[in-house]
């Protein structure tokens, strides 16, 4: 498992690439830009990626992160890949519901179910 300090860890499983957010809060513009660069490069390295974004550690985020997820999804779908989000804290899930992003993203309760599907 490769770790890109201190923002995300990347795990290459049998049929999926799992990117886990390490930080509890994702707020800073600089952090979001760094995340974007790193995750886009992970997407570009794998043909038709099956990308799972694990939010298990995340307790707070801003709407800028939602924008980042939209940009990530566009890149993944352009390359005929798949994107799944998992382990989203209930308070943050509420943010996805309010913005109706629950309708655009495939969201799983936990990493196990995201990996299995």
């Amino acid at each position, binding site marked *: 498992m490769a770790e890109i300090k201190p923002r995300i860890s990347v795990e290459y499983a049998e049929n999926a690439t799992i990117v886990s957010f390490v930080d509890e809060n994702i707020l800073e513009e*600089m952090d979001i830009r760094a995340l974007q660069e790193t995750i886009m490069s992970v997407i570009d390295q794998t043909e038709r990626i099956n990308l799972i974004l694990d939010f298990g550690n995340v307790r707070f985020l801003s709407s800028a992160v939602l924008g*980042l997820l939209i940009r990530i999804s566009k890149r993944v779908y352009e390359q005929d890949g798949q994107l799944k989000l998992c382990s989203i804290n209930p*308070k943050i899930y509420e943010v996805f519901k309010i*913005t109706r992003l629950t309708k655009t993203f495939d969201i799983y309760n936990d990493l196990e179910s995201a990996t299995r599907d």
Partner: protein
Amino acid sequence: MAVGSTLSASEDVCRGIMSRLEDCGFSREDLFAVHLALQEAFINAVRHGNKMDLNRQVKIEYSIDSDKIEITVADEGDGFDPQAVPDPRCGENLYKPGGRGLLLMCSYMDVVEHNQQGNSVCMVRHRERPPLTEDLRRKQA
């Protein structure tokens, strides 16, 4: 208080407000809501209001009483018409990266009011579960 037009400048203010809310017994839900709304209002003020101009400032004023918090965030920009902001939940807007800040502020705060110029927003959130008054406590006992 006035802070600079950088996206990280709100950190200390946010931390101070969250700590005061916690001390006053506001719930975790309240803290999450206020933190999110304040963050979004501040980002809007810096990015859209002051256009990241380091010579401009953002003013943040707040008051906390037993059942509510009121926060005003004002920038030095030309202002905007909040009614003209497209709904990010509709049609193609759903796939646009931006435009969700105002929606989140309105969803998590009980009152969100802009001044006429549109460069200052006042937000109020009432405590999730107000503390019981002595009278009500006696009645419930």
